[in-house]
């Protein structure tokens, strides 16, 4: 399995050349994948780079060749990939040359230089690698603030630190590390990096024996830095103590070094005790390992110094000091007396004791490896000083901790909410043991630790890694769900949703997947994200037909589709629900809604079948009907039963195919309505059913039966609106089925007994009659209404209706009278525009042109709607024509006809067309040939297929001819020439 590919919050010394590749890769990926996808060359370069990354440099070369062939002028853009190729084939010289040609201050330049640096480091060319990294850092005057760039900057600087440290360039390594301190590091990370910087300075100082000033400068810097470190609690106090002891050691102040360690011994011990209590691995993490190790260093140095000093007293000694060596000159040890040897041996023996302690008690700690080497040196020294040592520890490397122990340590950190340590420990163990039975738990905890540290992107990356790498693993699935819940509790809903989505995608077979899908859909609904909600519900339905959420999803999906009027989709879902749900009100509702979908789509035959199915299922007369087992649902089911019963009859009456069966359907519908009346005498739909039955009779031309039915309606349900207004109901039904004579007869009956009806009924009748051009009946209805009400709203309606009806009848005087009544009653009436137009037309009809113009002026003054003003303009032209003012009428039509895009709005396009034609006619009469040509052109442009287009063409030809006639003759043909 691949190493965990999340951002490693690792200590810098864990950085490796792979890290360099990763960061260069990160940069290059960003450059190619995000920035410039639109350009084919850039895409291909990115592709070629990807091919190299996938291990296909040969194919990348092919892509490159094709690219250079197709775009010879874009050779510059391919440098990057050529450089990468050269690196892949380890042709460093060529790579270096190509990289040198790419500007160092460009994003591409930076990325490729880092990558090349990595390659050089891998080839042991440290100076070249360093130069490239330095070039990268030289691009920045300060630490970059852009998070992505900072991440690259941080990783690059850590990587260079490793390179330099490995090359023994400690001071430069310390400087490289110092670059990132100005960045946004958390305090723990900053202390950790500063501690390392101090160590690097001390090591640099140790190499400056011959340059006392430089050495002092480095150690002073180190001492100053320690003050920044130690104020971080006991852990950092002891780390600082070790560093101080190391500085004293570098200054050859052995006793002071031992003294400072001794002074702080109590704290070292306390920390170890607390680690024991917290079950944190002592061999791995106790700071006392450092305590013993540094003491060993001091004793070793002191013992070696004692031996060297004894040699210096010898007259034959060459004054050549080899630091840290036991023998000052060749054969120097042989010059020592036994006493001198014993003295040195005793001190070195103490060092052996310290190192042994480190190896024995802290064999897997951070100092074990060095202690082992030092112990070997000291044993050799003791032997050469004439002594012998019996070792109590094995010098072979201690077996590393097994996975369980390492996991346990990391878990301890986690339980103690030491999330930095926990995440580092988890990463360390995962890199060593990527797949064990503990991995799911470990990854889950790692995600949480990252989140606690504020590294949400790392937390997300961990979660996605789990999903992608362990797809189908039940334990990992549990872990992702835990993370999702955890994120939600931590008020990170976006992260939580993401975790749930990853879970659903990668663990479709998990028993909890349906529930998660359902919850996600509900969450999408809460956010009003209807598309996502529908997608998730559909997924649930498609994937998990056996799940307990299947029916819920069907229901919600059906309801959503129904509300959006997507009736086919809604029907499908409700039908499935109805087929599979257990008997109960919910199932009945689903069946009902499935039928409703057909009803709304006017598929009456299908709707009939659907409603019939509901009727059969909900029949309370059936013995042991399961729908009536739960008494609290009985009322709802009975109500549905009644509705379905009514709807089946109604749908049957509306079926129109096959034609030869229509009369049978209607007869059956009447039977069903009768049956309905019997069963639901007092039901709320009973009057409606009776009215519907009457309408069916009308459709069947059985007028007597229809009349009887409506009379029956009136008698049986005198208190219902249908019963009270049965005649209106009849009129309405008759008009709907095209039986105007029946309707008029009924209106007469209503008029004969007006007190029996609400005034509103007459208003409705008037409107119905007017809409069907039955003007006398309309006038009668409106007049009855006006006689019987003082309601201003109804009276406005009455006057407007009368004005319109009289105008339609040609009685302009009465039309004017009624409209004026209306305006007098309420000059701000809602009928203002329509009434004013009727008034203008009526006035024109009565040749009261000034009044007509006044009515139109009122529209211009009070109505700002452009469309209505256009209609008024058209009427104005008619009035002007009636007045004989052809010029004025021409101008009015012209304003209409020159509208820039007359076809844009179909509502007005005909108005423009007629206006243009009238304008054309008037232009001909007025002999305005230019206007004729203009109008003819517009007619041909916008209405080329108009039935008057032939006339238009003739007019156009005439106008051209007339224009030619009117044109002045050429000078040579002019009269008198």
């Amino acid at each position, binding site marked *: 399995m691949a190493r965990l590919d999340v951002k490693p919050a690792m200590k810098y010394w864990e950085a490796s050349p792979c890290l360099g590749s990763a960061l260069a890769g990160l940069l290059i990926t960003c450059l190619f994948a995000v920035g410039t996808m639109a350009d*084919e060359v850039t*895409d291909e370069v*990115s*592709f070629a780079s*990807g*091919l190299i990354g*996938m*291990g*296909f440099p*040969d*194919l990348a070369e*092919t*892509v490159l060749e094709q690219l250079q062939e197709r775009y010879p002028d874009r050779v510059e853009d391919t440098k990057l990939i050529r450089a990468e190729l050269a690196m892949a084939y380890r042709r460093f010289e060529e790579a270096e040359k190509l990289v040198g040609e790419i500007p160092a201050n460009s994003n591409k330049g930076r990325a490729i230089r880092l990558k090349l640096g990595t390659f050089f480091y891998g080839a042991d060319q440290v100076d070249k690698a360093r130069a490239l990294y330095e070039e990268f850092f030289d691009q920045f005057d300060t630490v970059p603030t852009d998070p992505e760039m900072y991440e690259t900057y941080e990783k690059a600087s850590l990587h260079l630190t490793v390179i330099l440290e490995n090359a023994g360039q400690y001071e430069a390594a310390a400087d490289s590390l110092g670059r990132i301190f100005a960045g946004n590091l958390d305090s723990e990370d900053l202390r950790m990096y500063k501690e390392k910087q101090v160590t690097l300075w001390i090591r640099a100082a140790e190499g400056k024996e011959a340059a006392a000033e430089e050495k002092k400068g480095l150690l002073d810097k180190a001492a100053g830095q320690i003050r920044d470190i130690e104020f971080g609690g006991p852990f950092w106090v002891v780390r600082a103590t070790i560093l101080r002891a190391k500085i004293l050691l570098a200054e050859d102040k052995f006793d002071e070094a031992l003294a400072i360690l001794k002074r702080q011994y109590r704290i070292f011990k306390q920390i170890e005790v607390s680690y024991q209590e917290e079950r944190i691995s002592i061999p791995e993490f106790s700071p006392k390992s450092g305590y013993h190790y540094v003491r060993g260093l001091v004793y070793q140095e002191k013992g070696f110094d004692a031996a060297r000093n004894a040699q210096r007293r010898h007259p034959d000694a060459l004054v050549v000091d080899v630091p840290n060596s036991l023998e000052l000159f060749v054969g120097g040890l042989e010059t020592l007396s036994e006493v001198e040897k014993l003295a040195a041996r005793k001190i070195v023996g103490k060092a052996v004791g310290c190192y042994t302690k480190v190896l024995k008690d802290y064999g897997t700690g951070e100092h074990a490896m060095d202690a082992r080497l030092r112990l070997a040196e000291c044993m050799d020294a003791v032997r050469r000083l004439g002594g012998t040592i019996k070792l109590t520890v094995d010098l072979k490397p201690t077996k590393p901790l097994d996975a369980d122990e390492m996991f346990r340590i990391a878990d301890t950190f986690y339980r103690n909410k030491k999330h930095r340590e926990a995440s580092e420990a988890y990463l360390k163990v995962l890199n060593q043991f990527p797949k064990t039975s503990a991995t799911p738990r470990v990854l889950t905890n790692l995600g949480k630790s990252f989140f606690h540290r504020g590294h949400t992107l790392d937390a997300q990356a961990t979660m996605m890694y789990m999903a*992608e790498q362990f*797809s*189908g693993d039940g334990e990992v699935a549990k872990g992702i769900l835990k993370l999702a819940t955890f994120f939600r509790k931590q008020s990170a809903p976006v992260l939580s949703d993401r975790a749930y989505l990853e879970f659903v995608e990668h663990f479709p077979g998990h028993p909890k997947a349906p529930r998660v899908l359902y919850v996600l859909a509900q969450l999408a609904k809460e956010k009003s994200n209807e598309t996502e909600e529908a997608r998730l519900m559909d997924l649930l339905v498609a994937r998990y037909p056996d799940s307990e959420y299947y029916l*819920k999803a069907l*229901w*919600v999906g059906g*309801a959503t589709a*129904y509300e959006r*009027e997507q009736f*086919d989709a809604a029907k499908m879902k409700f039908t499935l629900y109805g087929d599979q*749900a*257990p008997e*109960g*009100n*919910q199932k009945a*509702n689903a069946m*009902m*809604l499935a039928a*409703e979908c057909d*009803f*709304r*789509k*006017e*598929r009456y035959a299908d709707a009939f079948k659907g409603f019939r199915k509901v009727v059969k299922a909900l029949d309370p007369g059936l013995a042991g009907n399961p729908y009536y087992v739960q008494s609290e649902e009985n009322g*709802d089911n009975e*109500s*549905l039963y009644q*509705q379905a019963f*009514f*709807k089946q009859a*109604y749908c049957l009456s509306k079926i129109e195919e096959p034609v030869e069966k229509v009369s049978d359907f209607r007869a059956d519908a009447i039977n069903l309505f009768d049956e309905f009346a019997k069963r639901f005498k007092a039901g709320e739909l009973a009057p*409606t059913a009776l009215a*519907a039955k009457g309408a069916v009779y009308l459709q069947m031309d059985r007028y007597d039966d229809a009349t009887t039915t409506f009379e029956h309606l009136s008698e049986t349900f005198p208190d219902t609106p249908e019963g009270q207004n049965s005649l209106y109901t009849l009129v309405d039904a008759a008009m709907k089925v095209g039986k105007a004579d029946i309707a008029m007869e009924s209106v007469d009956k209503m008029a004969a007994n007006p007190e029996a009806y609400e005034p509103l009924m007459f208003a409705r009748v008037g409107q119905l009659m007017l809409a069907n051009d039955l003007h006398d009946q309309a006038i009668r209805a409106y007049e009855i209404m006006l006689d019987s009400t003082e309601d201003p709203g109804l009276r406005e309606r009455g006057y407007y209706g009368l004005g319109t009806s009289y105008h339609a009848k040609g009685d302009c005087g009465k039309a004017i009278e009624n409209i004026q009544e209306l305006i007098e009653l309420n000059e701000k009436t809602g009928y203002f525009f329509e009434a004013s137009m009727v008034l203008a037309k009526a006035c024109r009809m009565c040749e009261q042109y000034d009044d007509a113009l006044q009515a139109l002026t009122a529209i211009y003054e009070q109505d700002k709607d452009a469309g209505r003003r256009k209609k008024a303009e058209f009427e104005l032209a008619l009035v002007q024509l009636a007045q004989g003012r052809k010029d004025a009428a021409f101008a009015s039509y012209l304003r209409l006809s020159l509208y820039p895009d007359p*076809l*844009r709005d*179909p509502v007005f396009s005909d108005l423009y067309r007629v206006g243009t034609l009238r304008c054309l006619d008037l232009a001909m009469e007025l002999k305005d040939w230019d206007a004729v040509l203009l109008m003819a052109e517009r007619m041909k442009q916008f209405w080329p*297929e108009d039935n008057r287009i032939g006339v238009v063409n003739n007019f156009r030809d005439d106008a051209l001819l007339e224009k030619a006639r009117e044109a002045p003759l050429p000078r040579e043909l002019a009269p008198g020439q």
Partner: protein
Amino acid sequence: MERHGNSMIVFVLAVIVFAVPVCAAVIELETGKKVQGASIRYSRGQYTIETPTGPRTYSESQVRRAISSKPAGWDQAISLARSQPEKSIAALEEIAKAEKGLDWDAQAYRYIARISSERLGDFQQAAEVYERMPPYSMDKPEVKIGYWKVLIELGRYDEVEPKLNKVVQSGNREFSARGQLLRGDINMKQRRWEPAALDFLRVVHFYKRQRSVHAEALYKAGKSLEELRHDGASRLLEELKKTYPDSEYAGKI
């Protein structure tokens, strides 16, 4: 059983029996405006839609598309596609004829083309059907892809390639990826293994998150590299097995 709410019951009750039915037909004009109505007729280049305010007529040139409610027999015709493809085609032809000029004729043709190619292997007929479809219905990416697949089967590469080249540069990632795969298919058919491998690897590289095409691309890239005896072939197929263990392509390895 848990109740999912009574709102729908109320909704049902609220349906007014005599209400004017919701619009079952829509005409989309070239201007972008949509006119709704109860039904549409098409005759001699003219569409007539019954609107609540009366019938309206539009000439063919004014109408971008006309959509009416699902024609009778549609579901049955579709349900026959698997078991009796010829019968299904005949029924769909009838529907297309009856619904000429309306959106359903385009839908019917699309199904006929798919049944012809996928069930009967009659790519010639499928191509002819696609070519009879109204131009607007060919705007849909899935229809185009279907048509191009048929043309590739017929070896009409010259017609498809320029279109694919255009598609792979389009903004729609899914469509673009599918176009790239088809380009690879053409190369595979012509036994041009390296260009094919590159086409498929482009999808592998650029469309990692398009899971619907990524598995196919891995498989086909692996197979074309196998033809080249490239040692990277097994790596890709391994990745396919690891990343998409349940995909149909992993099953083919």
